[in-house]
């Protein structure tokens, strides 16, 4: 065998025709997309920086809780600017280090966004697969229920239920203070977020379950469990990854909105929303605070969205490249 193939190689100077798995094709396509790759690097870097905030803060020697009240003027504006000690300067009002606040603040924002995405995804996958695979009456009921949730004014529900629900969570002893508020946000955002996932998964499953490899598995006597876990789920990853990379920045922005409105996490903890709501008060006297806080959120959301776009292009078998 070995020698034969060598001879073929020798005689025809054409490269080996290697079989490539869909995954390799997708990766190759993704690598070709320069914007996607750089957005991916930016996203991962920022995500890592914020998840490792305590270590990063220690390395660059900044601390989110230290107040520098003595360098504030009468209006609360810091008299020192950007320096090695404070790479992004100080926050007006309290004189805390801005970079450290961003690092630790984004950590809570990411935590909420990631937890929400995972919860919504899990429920969405479960409901979507059941609906798509079993079709018929089950699908009918689940479908109407998701329609019902999608039609709900989620934003106003969250605004209206915030205080009583947080109080309920605190009374029940599950969590106190900000943990209770984070639980509330994650619960409600994912409660209203899963129907979108579920619809996508259902439509994928509906088409997958009619494909030959599923029919073959069924003909060979595979159990439902096996068909779902071994045949369907692996083929769902592509669309799921895309949706995750697009919905994560969506939830980041949502968290910022709720915290901005005073409905999310409360000070002294920090999030993008709190930093922004703080920054709006100083926008005329210290615009750099607002620009950096808003700009950092823009960069993160944009980077994640670009990665999502690039992934979608890469994973789409019908794409031209």
């Amino acid at each position, binding site marked *: 065998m070995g020698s034969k193939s060598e001879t073929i190689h020798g005689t025809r100077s054409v490269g080996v025709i290697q079989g490539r798995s869909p995954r390799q094709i997708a990766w190759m396509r993704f690598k070709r997309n320069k914007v996607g790759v750089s957005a991916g690097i930016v996203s991962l870097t920022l995500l890592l920086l914020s998840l490792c905030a305590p270590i990063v803060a220690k390395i660059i020697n900044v601390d989110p*809780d*230290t*107040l520098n*009240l003595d360098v*504030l003027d*009468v*209006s*609360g504006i810091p008299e020192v600017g950007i320096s090695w000690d404070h790479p992004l300067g100080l926050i*007006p*009002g*309290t004189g*805390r280090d801005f970079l450290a606040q961003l690092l630790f603040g984004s950590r809570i924002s990411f935590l909420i966004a990631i937890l929400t995405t995972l919860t919504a995804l899990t429920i969405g996958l479960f409901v979507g697969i059941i609906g798509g695979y079993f079709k018929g009456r089950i699908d009918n009921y689940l479908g109407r229920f998701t329609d019902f949730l999608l039609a709900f004014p989620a934003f106003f529900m969250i605004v209206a239920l915030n*205080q009583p629900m947080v109080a309920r969570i605190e009374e029940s002893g599950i969590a*106190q*203070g900000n943990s209770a508020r984070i639980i509330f946000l994650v619960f409600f955002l994912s409660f209203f977020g899963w129907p979108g996932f579920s619809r996508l998964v259902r439509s994928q499953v509906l088409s997958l379950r009619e494909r030959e490899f599923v029919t073959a598995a069924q003909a060979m006597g595979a159990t439902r469990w096996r068909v779902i876990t071994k045949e369907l789920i692996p083929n769902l990853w592509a669309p799921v990854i895309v949706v995750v990379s697009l919905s994560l920045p969506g939830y980041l922005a949502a968290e910022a909105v709720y915290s901005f409105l*005073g409905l999310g996490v*409360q*000070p*002294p903890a920090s999030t993008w929303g*709190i930093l922004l*709501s*703080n920054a*709006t*008060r*100083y926008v*005329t*006297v210290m615009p750099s605070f607002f620009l950096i806080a808003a700009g950092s959120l823009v960069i993160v959301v944009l980077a994640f969205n670009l990665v999502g776009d690039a992934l979608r292009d890469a994973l789409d078998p019908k794409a031209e490249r």
Partner: protein
Amino acid sequence: MSNISALRRAVVVTAASALAVSAVMVAGATSASAAVTPRAGGILTFLEHTPRLDHYDPSRIYTGRDLAFMNSFMTRTLVAYNPVPGAAGANLVPDLATNTGVPSNSAKTWKFTLRPGSTFEDGVKVTCESVQYGVSRVFATDVITDGPGYLQAWLDIPKDADGNSVFKGPYKKDAAGLAAFKKAVSCSKDNRTITFQLNKSVADFNYLATYGVISPVQASKDTGDKYDLRPQSTGPYKIEENSKTQMKLVRNSKWSRASDPVRTPYPDEVVILFGYDEEVIDQIILGDTIPTAVSFGEPLSTNNDKFFSEASMKNRRMNNPDPYARYFAFNVKAMPCLEIRQAMYYSRNAKALLDYAGGSTYAGSYATGVISPLLATDYTPTKVVGPGSADFIPEGNIPKAKALMETAKTKCPADYKKATETGIKIDVRQSVTLNDTIPIDTAAYARAGIKVTFNPISSGYYPTVMNPEKQSDLSASGWGADWANASTVIPELFASYGGFNISQNLGDPAQKAFEDKVNIAMKTTDRAAQSKMWKALDAEAMKAFWVLPTIFGKAQFVWGSQVGGVFFWVPQGNPAFGKMWINN
């Protein structure tokens, strides 16, 4: 009188005490365009941060600013403070009555005679009976909540076994109770003279008659709790709309100028717009985008410099000492350990918070007790807390706080555990400034190992914290004398019958002896001797740490370029809203 938020901005409160005050306040007051003759017409607009005012029912309003507002436009009372600038503003003038009250029987009996021609907004005449009915409502303490409680304490009505009045208000049918009430508050045959029988001598009872608790209400129009949304007017304006976005007052055609010597209405309409962001309000006034607007609260402390250094704002701002002592009321039931209460006082960073609020220029000075220096007769530094006391350090006396916590550890371990592990919960009014003040507080208390959490309340602040069920461990608060006697401060805040005792101190070991001394002071008619007692009681209350005193405040007001006639109304601690006019 009334309560105020300890954080600068929030609803400003009230009033009072004027007599004492004056020189200082007047110096600070500025008057725009005093030389120009006021003109009628236009729409006067107030911009407010909260989604509504706490109350509109005259029997339930106890917030100074809201009292000044409603009494200027809608609610006529038997007597009123004279709405003029300077010390004369603290003088009482007849309003619905023909005089400022006639005392007899060593001030145990007070008579007021109504002037003819005053009507409600539906044209019905104001009679003694309607005032009598208005007074009776405050006894329905389950429905008519939050107003001053003096009438229940002073009117000569028998008490039941629990010490409550036998009269339970007009909503419960009880002939005996009503008869007892009508004996204490009676009407003459011609229905024009109302007589109050008090259970003790109250030489300044007529000052209480400036409050809506003694104002006419038509029995047929009384809707109980709902009256709060749409009270009837006796003044020059009436409510046309009271919604989530605005309260709109229009002219009351039944009001006659001849019957009202106090009010001189100028604008066609008066509107309060609710729910504006504090920063937005400041920008509107700074940019003069609504030249007929008045900020109903104070400017954000971060904007003070812009308002007060800008020459173009010269006629559109004022900055005065206000009559409030601000403090945090400890819920003593939830925080029985004296050492921990003390440790909180000593670990708080008073300087950082005062600086944050604008320093001595805008925010005021460190409090030495709950009696404000503007109440000059009864004020002296307590030497227990604040400047003049041995252990007071503006940035916080951490060694002292730590030592106190050490004592608490063995003396009250359960409370120590709560303070250091679970955290002490503080009620505060929702405001963007919390983004800064919470981190400052958290860091300050942490220096002594005390953990704090915050409970921001977005509307109905005082009704919430005055409810023992809902109050947290500490509640931001403020109080100004109702009139120039600390009898409207010390008993109100710390006695079992006090109308604003949110310290819940009844179980405290020091309370009984304290209250006995308060009762003696209340009976003392020699004013000099009485003021000595108030000074001592102020110090004693501070020693018990039922409150954590913060600052004696200052208040800023700003308005648009077309608003004329703005001046500081000394006894109300607010601008005289009724004298404002539109100049365009």
